[in-house]
């Protein structure tokens, strides 16, 4: 074991040695021409995205909420239509359905009546009226508190915080009021009708205040749910589920996916259940767990593992190339789906967790500790985390700060050969 680990260590050093050289080219979010080594999956070509009607309406776990679904249970898929949407359009579509079906639903936040910075509320004020889709002053703590009050009256409150980085002024209202409302009123009050949306994760050059992933800060706030979608279909279904969930939900939308992730999205009303992780690629040798943007980097890393581009060849031992990696999207970060992850790691014996937030205090630490306890005797390697570094998000080195496909590949190789 000592030997293998040493080899892995060397491999890793060499892999990272060429990181700088290749990282830019293989960033799945880059727009440069394809590398000489051939095509690697990118967000545009990702097989994770459902680009046909047929695959879209068969999205696992999809739960239809229109009348047709209940009256003709035998044939829920017949006549379902889809439309090509990117993530921000899918978010908008979900909110449009929520406003249509629920008279108490309102949307508010900074500049949302003008569509918001990322266009998620484009046209909603015109369609549903300024009294239902309205701008707030610059007041994050006020937005959260106002939403809590509105929701405690049973109204559906959909608040937007312009960037996840600006959620901190609202932290007290979210953690001390929203999360604890039910408990501290002995179950008499709840603010389940509150959903707070915010764009999250990095764009490659957002810097200190526009690329953070603050989900970990909320992990101790029992009573709250945190949801992060990976794609347009997921965004629509999970957002509708969040809006209707009887608990307050923070819904974080990976902002780089707003335009780049495109799917055929069912136009009807549907939900995707909260609290359930999704196995995207089944496997038996290692569990690769992530959420949001890094999913696409994981996909690229897995492609590099099975067929490494020429320059990477010497660093990926042939014996590891046929390894079967189980790729899981956690989707709901709090409370997280401990059963699905435990079951998977008990089968694979290895776990690599990838997230953009810094490692210390990140969600990966919580999951590692719990899985190490539950799967201790089944583990063949220590749980490995690939995360942002323990630094602020730096402006120049943001691409090195966030986990990229090479760092993920490196961690997978190391964990497989431990």
């Amino acid at each position, binding site marked *: 074991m000592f030997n293998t680990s040493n080899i892995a260590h060397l491999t890793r050093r060499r892999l990272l040695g060429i990181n700088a050289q290749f990282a830019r080219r293989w960033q799945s979010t880059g727009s440069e021409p394809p590398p000489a080594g051939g095509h690697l999956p990118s967000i545009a070509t990702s097989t994770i995205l459902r680009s046909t009607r047929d695959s879209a309406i068969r999205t696992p776990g999809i739960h239809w909420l229109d009348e047709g679904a209940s009256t003709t249970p035998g044939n829920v898929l017949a006549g379902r239509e889809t439309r090509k949407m990117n993530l921000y359009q899918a978010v908008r579509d979900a909110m449009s359905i929520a406003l249509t079906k629920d008279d108490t639903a309102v949307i508010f936040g*900074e500049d949302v009546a003008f569509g918001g910075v990322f266009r998620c509320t484009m046209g909603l004020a015109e369609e549903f009226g300024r009294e239902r889709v309205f701008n707030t002053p*610059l007041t994050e*703590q006020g937005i959260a508190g106002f939403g809590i009050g509105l929701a405690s009256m049973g109204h559906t409150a959909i608040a937007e915080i312009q960037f996840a980085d600006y959620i901190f002024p609202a932290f007290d209202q979210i953690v001390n009021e929203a999360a604890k409302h039910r408990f501290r009123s002995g179950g008499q009050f709840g603010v389940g009708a509150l959903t707070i949306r915010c764009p999250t994760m990095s764009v490659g050059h957002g*810097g*200190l205040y526009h690329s953070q992933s603050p989900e970990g800060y909320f992990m101790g706030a029992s009573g709250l749910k945190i949801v992060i979608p990976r794609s347009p279909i997921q965004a629509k279904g999970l957002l509708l589920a969040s809006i209707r969930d009887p608990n307050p939900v923070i819904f974080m939308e990976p902002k780089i996916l707003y335009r780049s992730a495109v799917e055929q999205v069912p136009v009807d009303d549907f939900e995707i259940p909260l609290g359930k992780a999704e196995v995207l690629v089944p496997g038996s040798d290692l569990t690769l767990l992530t959420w949001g943007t890094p999913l696409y980097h994981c996909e690229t890393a897995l492609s590099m593992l099975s067929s490494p581009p020429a320059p990477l060849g010497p660093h990926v031992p042939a014996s590891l190339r046929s390894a079967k990696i189980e790729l899981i999207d956690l989707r709901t970060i709090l409370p997280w789906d401990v059963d699905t992850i435990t079951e998977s790691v008990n089968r694979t014996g290895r776990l690599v967790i990838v997230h953009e937030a810094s490692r210390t205090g990140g969600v990966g630490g919580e999951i590692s500790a719990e899985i190490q306890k539950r799967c201790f005797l089944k583990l063949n390697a220590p749980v490995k985390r690939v995360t942002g570094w323990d*630094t602020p998000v730096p*402006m120049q080195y943001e691409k090195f700060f966030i986990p990229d496909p090479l760092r993920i590949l490196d961690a997978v190789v190391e964990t497989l050969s431990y």
Partner: protein
Amino acid sequence: MASLARISSRLSRRIPLARAIQTSADTTQLAQDASHSEPFTVKLHEDSFRAYRTEIPGLEVQVTKDGLLSMYKEMNSMRRMEMASDALYKQKLIRGFCHLAIGQEAVSVGLERGITPEDRVITAYRCHPFAVLRGGTIKGVIAELLGRQAGMSHGKGGSMHIFTPSFFGGNGIVGAQVPVGAGIAFAQKYMEKPVATYAMYGDGASNQGQVFEAFNMAKLWDLPVVFVCENNKYGMGTSAERSSSNPEYFTRGDKIPGIQANGMDIIAVKKAVEHTREWVLSGKGPIILEFVTYRYGGHSSTQDPIRGLQRYIEEWGLATEEELKKLDKEAKAEVDQAVEEAKASPIPFEHDLWTDIYYNGYRAPIHCVGVSVKRFTTI
């Protein structure tokens, strides 16, 4: 929902003002003949100021030819710097965020002329001119925007993160700098120094709770702080009237008096700054100073602060158009050179990713200076 509709329509109705503030950049008149060598007196438009719980500053102001010409040059340098930044941003050489103060030069240059180097200034993200005027350089600002080593924060922060010993940033979280300003002023008072703090924020930022919290502390402890609201009428897409139940920002301090000033006429700006500085240094506690200004040069040329000053200089016979053009050319050349030098500066050292997180020599959490750093250096 009907009730919400009622509320919002009431909010958006404008309360008619008693008498509107003058916002033209060129309404100051000579009060005596202009002199080329001696200070002379000019008179501001009678509506250059409005006051709340106090008197307006005097309208007669002493100026000098040299002072006016150097302000003209400085305003041009600031405008050129912002235009150059805009171009670099459009070329995608500046990444991240880049907020420009084009059209608001009278505020930054006029503020600096009314205070001393020992006074302190803190503002939001629209900060580039202050960083230069408070001891920085154009090259240092542009290099910071480009994320280069020669940047004033060594390229680690970018546009919103620029500091000098007397300028506390450059702050990207809207409103956060205002209570910080109160703390700075407390330290000044504690040390019994005859200096003031200018804590700046926008019309949009004025609605953050912590701005009101700062007001209360400052008045409670009579701190030597001037709260400066740069009212450029908009916070991103939302107009002042639609964001603020009371858009008369100089009246929002409750017991704190306020002055509203024409932020487009640099002579009025300088006068208002001197006046408020005297106020807080005389131990009367904080004061609010609202500058009414425009983003991006306003709606017409009478609302361009540089053209306004140019008109004074020409009409008062202090310099010819050609002489002013020469100053403008010098400003442009200065900025062009700064851009070239900034571009030539390299991006930060890789090891600078993990410096300055804790005090030098202190250990960051394990994943910073431990394993990861070693791994990082192999890149």
